[in-house]
């Protein structure tokens, strides 16, 4: 990542106000400047930043620095909450009440309209059991129709197309008739990419809108877009009154501050995010996750909150009980690994711990691979073996290795790893939860220092 996280940035300016109990105008100023820069680097539009900073300042002034929190953490929390509020506090889904529901995809060239259309079509047919129809209304870019047709074939979803010689308006009106006749309950219209200042093409969109009366007009925006996003969103909104936005290419390393600008300008919800090139790489938009991303995720407060959110308390308690009873098995270990995975990519989690961002980059794909390997081995065991790996003998190991397509050495490695973590668990199990101190004296003190006496002796001599 090219940028430092917000909390790192704040560290410097924080040194000056350490120990002050309230946030005042003077001690806030420098911090607000850092926040402003961080937001600008995240591609949030500067006009939005300006208003945002003014709001935050008002909220933060006079706030007491509570408990053991540092002033910086208080500020980050305020900024985070403010961001979430701006991004919309609820997750917004598609309005599918009308029959057929017409969804129009609009946006600049290369923002990902066609791919997103395919993704949404797949989502609707798989998850919502709808019968969608894809309409190829991009008659300008070479092979755009072919692209949608190929996607339709891959997904087994029908594509309505009339080649490139028929006007877009005519294509969609025929498509509507086709949809009625063939009982499609969702019609997804993939329009051509266009610049927001191209009047003839914008008029074409308006005509399409008048013909099909869409219940959703989704503006597809690339997460890499910079300051110009406000012009784009504004003018598409003025022409068409969009009902939502889709933020694509979020699997890149951009901060995606544009999401904030879109919300601020148009007040429409962001409905989906695109997180990869595969057709199932689409996700609902969670405002708090986006806020973390824009800020660079660099604070422990949100990590703790995140862990609380994601960790299934019941599951954890169950594991804890087993740990104490000493019946911690392989399936428990797998369960824990899954819980950690739910927090997001490992590199992202590490970034939240102050000081960690400077660590060499962790390759997420590698850790994913390792998890998959572990998974495959454990799933190849019987339930009994998972509960108590000590019963594994050479024959059983060989069977497991065959079952998961790995070598016996891999199985052995996993068991070794498991024994090590079990050992660690046992030690942790001895901790008294109320004090965090060991309840019994550890049997052998690891930190015993044979030179202890000598040192003391030397000190005396010096005196």
């Amino acid at each position: 990542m090219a940028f430092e996280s917000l909390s790192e940035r704040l560290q410097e300016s924080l040194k000056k106000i350490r120990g002050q109990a309230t946030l005042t105008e003077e001690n806030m100023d420098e911090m607000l400047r850092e926040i402003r820069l961080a937001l600008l680097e995240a591609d949030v539009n500067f006009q939005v930043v300006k208003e945002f900073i003014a709001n935050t300042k008002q909220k933060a002034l006079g706030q007491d620095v509570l408990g053991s929190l540092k002033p910086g953490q208080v500020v980050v929390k305020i900024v985070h909450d403010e961001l979430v509020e701006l991004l919309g506090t609820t997750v917004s889904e598609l309005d599918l009440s009308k029959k057929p529901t017409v969804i129009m995809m609009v946006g600049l060239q290369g923002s990902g309209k066609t791919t997103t259309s395919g993704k949404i079509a797949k989502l609707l047919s798989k998850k919502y059991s709808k019968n969608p129809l894809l309409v190829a209304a991009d008659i300008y870019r070479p092979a755009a129709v072919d692209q949608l047709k190929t996607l339709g074939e891959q997904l087994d979803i029908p594509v309505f197309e009339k080649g490139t010689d028929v006007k877009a308006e005519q294509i969609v009106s025929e498509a509507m008739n086709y949809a009625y006749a063939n009982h499609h309950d969702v019609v997804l219209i993939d329009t051509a990419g266009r610049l927001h200042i191209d009047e003839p093409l914008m008029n074409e969109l308006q005509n399409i809108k008048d013909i099909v009366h869409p219940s959703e007009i989704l503006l597809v925006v690339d997460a890499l877009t910079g300051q110009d996003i406000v012009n784009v969103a504004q003018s598409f909104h003025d022409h068409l009154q969009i009902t939502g936005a889709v933020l694509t290419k979020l699997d890149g390393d951009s901060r995606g501050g544009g999401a904030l600008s879109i919300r601020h300008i148009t007040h429409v919800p962001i409905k989906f995010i695109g997180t990869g090139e595969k057709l199932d790489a689409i996700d609902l938009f969670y405002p708090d996750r986006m806020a973390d991303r824009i800020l660079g995720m660099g604070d422990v407060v949100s990590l703790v909150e995140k862990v609380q959110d994601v960790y299934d308390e019941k599951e954890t308690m169950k594991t804890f009980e087993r740990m104490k009873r000493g019946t911690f098995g392989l399936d428990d270990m797998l369960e824990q690994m899954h819980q950690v995975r739910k927090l997001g990519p490992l590199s992202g989690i590490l970034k939240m711990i102050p000081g960690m961002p400077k660590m060499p980059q962790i390759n997420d794909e590698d850790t994913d691979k390792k998890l998959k390997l572990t998974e495959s081995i454990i799933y190849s065991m019987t339930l009994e073996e998972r509960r108590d790996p000590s019963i594994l003998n050479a024959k059983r190991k060989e069977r497991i290795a065959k079952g998961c397509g790995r070598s016996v050495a891999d199985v052995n490695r996993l068991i070794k790893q498991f024994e090590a973590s079990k050992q660690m668990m046992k030690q942790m199990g001895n901790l008294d939860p109320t004090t965090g101190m060991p309840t019994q004296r550890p049997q052998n003190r690891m930190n015993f220092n044979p030179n202890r006496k000598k040192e003391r002796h030397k000190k005396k001599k010096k005196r």
Partner: protein
Amino acid sequence: MGFFSKIKETLVGKSAKQNDKYVAGLDKSNSSFSSKINELAARYREIDDDYFEELENILIMSDVGVNMVMTIVDEIKKEVRLQNIKDPKEINEIIIDKMFVIYANDSYMTTKINYDDEDLTVILMIGVNGAGKTTTIAKLAHMMLNEGKTVMVAAGDTFRAGAIDQLDVWAKRLGIECVKGKEGGDPSSVVFDALKRAKEQKVDVLICDTAGRLQNKVNLMNELEKMNRIIKRVVPQGPQETLLVIDATTGQNGVSQAQEFSKITDITGLVLTKMDGTAKGGIVLSIKDALNIPVKFVGLGEQMDDLQEFDLEQYIYGLCKGLLEK
């Protein structure tokens, strides 16, 4: 006399047609930028901190990187103090001057393609998804055909649905050969076939399309490295040009794109596409500053001939047109 007046002078002698096209394409981008600076000058009676903060905002609006903006503004501050300028109207010249100097930065810049007279010239187009690689290839091929070169293209984007067809349609329009592989196949094998074919046919230039990839995808970046190796095996000097295609609407992430891609291959130049919109593509200033990669071409529309050589003087002239007319 500053650069500003010099630009004015040189431009009078420039061929009027090319100049017009550039200005027309950039018109949307510029009007907002220069009118804002003019507005700023009109609003402030003297130059103070508020003035500089506004100036900062205007530059940031053009997607010039945040750090870069700080550098430019600091430089301008210094100059203002040195020359003791009080009137905001006089500052315009300095602003443009500084942007020019920072971009040029004493380095050698060329917008010409590095043709190999002895061997096949290979051009590799790279970039993130949807930047405009395929369209730019068509434009570039058109430009080379006009220069009297023989051109062949390789459809190296085997991943995205319809990408091969897209390049094929363009190739047919241009009347050139397009080497294709199977959709979902190994792009390196397509490139290899194309290299062999290009050598057999003795064409001058081979332009290789690649699939769009985000710069943090390790596997895809490795794939790019492999393509590079394959090209080197057949054409030892190749690829003579590796052009990174960047969308003018790209924000701060542009620097990260340039950085990551240049770790894998030696980028010889940038192509700034979609400059006919309202985006200003200011991020190229930051990229030039951080990695010293110059812009070679600018895309100004969807037609074949909407590709222009990047001309710094015209770019800045375009950005600041409103100022000149004062």
